[in-house]
């Protein structure tokens, strides 16, 4: 256990630090409520105007929308700002001098950053869409509870894997930042990819039927779509295990890729600043 202590400390300190910035969460929250409300209205217009059967009900699509707004900061679309600042200022040398595994050290810090941003935002969104909207008599527009107890437990496990997978993907962006010295280009490329393929843009189930298998198998479904499907009871029984298995597989694969590319990037690192 002693060997893990520095990583645990790095995670905890980052988590507690970011937790201090609660007003940022509040500002983001307003934006996400508006965004979610707009999406719900558009979905309702499409569902209301059509008799065609849909793979998920409008109620499920609405819950999906609120969940994906609440979990917005879980999506791996940018580099860890601390890492990109370290790269720009030359602070990366300090990180290199620490007697810890470079990948694992950045990984836990990024995970702490992400977790601290997701938790207050998700809680705010849940209280708005899951409590305030039903109290206002708008429960059919709100965030519904999970399908059943098994769905709830599966969702909890799936969220943990989603955090690991998302951090592993964020590490790839960190490594691109390390190699190219700026994260702007990498962010510009990953945002559209992540938004679409995670299900944030539109629940993946609503894409055409012939795309469904491919959409489930690709790595980004693991950061949002799979947990939400488990929550809604859209993936049940063996489906839950398949979903968790996919998440686990991609997490391991992306970490392996990250470790490999990071060791290469560090070998030819040019330190900035002075």
């Amino acid at each position, binding site marked *: 256990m002693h060997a893990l202590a520095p990583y645990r400390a790095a995670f905890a300190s980052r988590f507690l630090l970011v937790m201090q910035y609660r007003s940022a969460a509040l*500002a*983001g929250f*307003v*934006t996400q409520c*508006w*965004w979610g409300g*707009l999406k719900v*209205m*558009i*979905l309702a*217009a*499409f*569902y209301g*105007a*059509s008799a*065609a059967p*849909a793979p998920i009900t409008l109620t499920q699509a609405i819950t999906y929308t609120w969940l994906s707004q609440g979990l917005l900061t879980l999506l791996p679309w940018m580099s860890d700002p601390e890492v990109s600042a370290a790269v720009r200022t030359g602070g990366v040398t300090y990180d290199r001098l620490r007697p810890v595994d470079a990948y694992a050290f950045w990984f836990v810090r990024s995970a702490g950053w992400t977790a601290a941003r997701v938790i207050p935002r998700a809680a705010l969104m849940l209280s708005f869409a899951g409590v305030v909207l039903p109290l206002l008599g708008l429960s059919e527009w709100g965030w519904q509870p999970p399908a059943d107890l098994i769905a709830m437990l599966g969702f909890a496990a799936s969220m943990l894997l989603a955090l690991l997978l998302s951090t592993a993907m964020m590490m790839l962006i960190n490594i691109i930042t390390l190699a*190219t010295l*700026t994260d*702007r*280009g*990498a*962010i*510009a*490329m990953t*945002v*559209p*990819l992540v*938004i*679409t393929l995670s299900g944030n*843009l*539109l629940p993946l189930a*609503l*894409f*055409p039927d012939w795309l469904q298998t491919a959409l489930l198998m690709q790595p980004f479904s693991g950061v949002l779509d799979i947990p939400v499907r488990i929550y809604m009871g859209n993936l049940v029984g063996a489906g839950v295990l398949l979903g968790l298995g996919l998440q686990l597989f991609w997490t391991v694969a992306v970490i392996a890729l990250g470790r490999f590319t990071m060791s290469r990037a560090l070998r030819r690192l040019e330190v900035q600043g002075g």
Partner: protein
Amino acid sequence: MSGLRLWLHFAAVSIKSQAQYPTSAVLLTVGQLLTTVVEIVAVWALFDRFGSVHGWTFAEVAVFYGLVHVMFALSGLCTHAVEGVGTEFLRTGTFDRLLLRPRTVILQLIGHDFRLSRLGRFTQGMIVLVIGAQYVGIEWSLGDVLMMLWAVAGGMALFFGIVVLQGAVSFWTIESLEVANVLTYGGVQAAQYPLSLYNDWLRGVLTFVVPLACVAYYPILTLLDRPDPLGAPAWFGYVAPLAGFVFAALSFIAWRAGVRHYTSAGS
């Protein structure tokens, strides 16, 4: 040096500085293109699954979508520094420097960061607009083209006005409020669908408060020769884009009040 020449000079300097990181600039532009492409993919997926919505077809909605993105992209070319004035200029105190120069602050700000990457969004919006109009069967008479240019001008004024208002607020908050994205990006999102999809209060907001419907929905109804399902007269499409300019003018009044309120925060 006239204001326009000075602005062109500012923009040229900004473009040159972006060219120092060519890979990043290209990736940013492609990224902007992709970001907007995925949005039309979502619209397509919904139409693919549900057929049509309240009598609107995918091609018609594509015209809305394309037009709104074209306006937003064009105004976004030069508004980045106005948007970030709170964090980048007020908090750091560098705003004082802008005030000391013998030119209006807005002129200096719109030349400060000329975002070439917005051309990615513009390109995509233009392609969707042209293809959508093709499928809808718009002939593009001179009147149609003028109508579109007028709507785009109104839309640029409106988006510019929103950003100026966002900048004006930051004179009091001393930081750039991301909540304003609700009006810019959120507005784009809202205006890319026909107004008749929304419920009453949102229609009211989009017509009378942030008049996005006036620069997109009503002009396009006129272009498509469709009667308004909500009952606005046909001539309204011709005058509606004016609302964008009115919004921009009001935003400038707020901006000037903000500049008068300004006290330096730097050291």
